[in-house]
């Protein structure tokens, strides 16, 4: 494993009585893409804001490039690119002013790269931010986030509410960041198929807790989705070892389960059934199962 870029240790944070982050640990190494998944309000944005020094760690520690982002914001932020979910850009600025403004904070600003991106996106430099459509705002925010070629790119729900063209621009930025320069990307998304494709590692956050974290292939390999047939008719989901979510009825059930397949077969057999088919579960199936919505449709199209 390469150099550690982000190291979050046992971070907790509450807003009022609500635990926003509950003993969260998270680590990112250089050159990898990290996907953060979780329901709205699970704590993804709160975690990302800690990395940027926008929130101070109440307990636990946060290090980015070995630095504390609250105590050394310049040392951290000059090396980070960030696109927030709200794309909170200064409304009154024109696009070219936003570029100059952002450039001032970043000695590594690559003006020709910024120009190339603006042209690719067809962004009018003389337009005010407040006159831009949602997609164009995201594009402008993206240029501001990547044109200094940051060592760490942080994207909070980058695809949220965008059409396919702009989503592709975002993916393009992720791919470029990693493929050309071996830099690191952390992005949060509720689009699980996007995370499954675009991430090397995935971290699942549920109610402020990390419920699952690891290399994507390992995570997927740890869960199976099996189709099961019983002789007997079940009105309620039968109790099976290591089953996390079950869907179906009567004699046929789809089950998302963890652990060894052998053990699972055994517990199915004990109830007079057989496993018809098994495969590694998709991230979406694992997510729904781990989010505890056991009655949710497991069958995802």
């Amino acid at each position, binding site marked *: 494993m390469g150099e550690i870029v982000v190291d979050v240790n046992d971070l907790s944070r509450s807003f009022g009585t609500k635990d926003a982050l509950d003993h969260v640990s998270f680590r990112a190494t250089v*050159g990898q893409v990290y996907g953060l998944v979780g329901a709205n309000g699970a704590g993804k944005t709160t975690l990302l804001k800690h990395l940027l020094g926008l929130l101070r760690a109440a307990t636990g520690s946060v290090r980015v490039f070995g630095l504390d982002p609250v105590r050394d914001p310049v040392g951290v932020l000059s090396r980070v690119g960030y696109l927030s979910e709200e794309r909170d850009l200064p409304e009154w600025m024109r696009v070219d002013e936003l570029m100059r403004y952002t450039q001032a904070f970043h000695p590594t600003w690559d003006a020709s790269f910024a120009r190339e991106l603006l042209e690719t996106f067809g962004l009018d430099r003389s337009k005010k931010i407040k006159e831009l459509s949602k997609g164009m705002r995201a594009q402008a925010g993206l240029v501001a986030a990547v044109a200094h070629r940051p060592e760490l790119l942080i994207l909070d729900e980058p695809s949220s509410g965008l059409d396919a063209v702009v989503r592709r621009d975002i993916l393009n930025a992720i*791919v*470029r960041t990693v*493929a050309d320069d071996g830099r690191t990307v952390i992005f949060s998304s509720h689009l699980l198929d996007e995370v499954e*494709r*675009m*991430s*090397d590692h995935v971290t699942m956050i549920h109610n402020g807790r990390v419920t699952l974290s690891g290399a994507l*292939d390992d995570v997927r390999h740890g869960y199976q989705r099996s189709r099961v047939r019983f002789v007997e008719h079940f009105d309620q989901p039968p109790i099976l070892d290591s089953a996390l979510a079950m869907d179906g009825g009567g004699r046929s059930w789809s089950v998302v389960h963890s652990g060894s397949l052998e053990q699972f077969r055994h517990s199915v057999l004990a109830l007079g059934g057989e496993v018809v088919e098994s495969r590694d579960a*998709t991230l979406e199936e694992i997510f729904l199962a781990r989010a505890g919505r056991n009655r949710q449709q497991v069958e995802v199209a």
Partner: protein
Amino acid sequence: MDIIINLADGVPIYRQIVNQIKYLVASDLLLPGEELPPIRTLALQLKVTPNTVVKAYDELESSGVIHGRRGAGTFVSDGRPVLAHEERQRIIEQRIDALLAEAHQLNFTADDILRMLRERRAAMKSGTSGEPTELRRK
């Protein structure tokens, strides 16, 4: 390059890429000396992380299917190849497992399936059905 990623089939994405490139080479759809897309291009086309493509190319290189990774591009190696017996068996077994599972669901026995396989093959040989074109499309 015609590669399709299917998230729901339970096979890791890098392995899907490896299998499909091996298949393209084995079936002459990719020819020796032909250049493969750069990592960034293929990653974008498939909408996957570049590291997944790197992993797939690394594996293809170490099994001799492609060469020349560093610098000047990636090319398909000479010599027909490459699908070891074990590999071919694994690919076809995946198909068979899916077929048997579906057959089971539709209440066909394994013997029914064997009989139907023979019938289909006979039909294909005599050229009386449109099936071969259908197969080629896969």
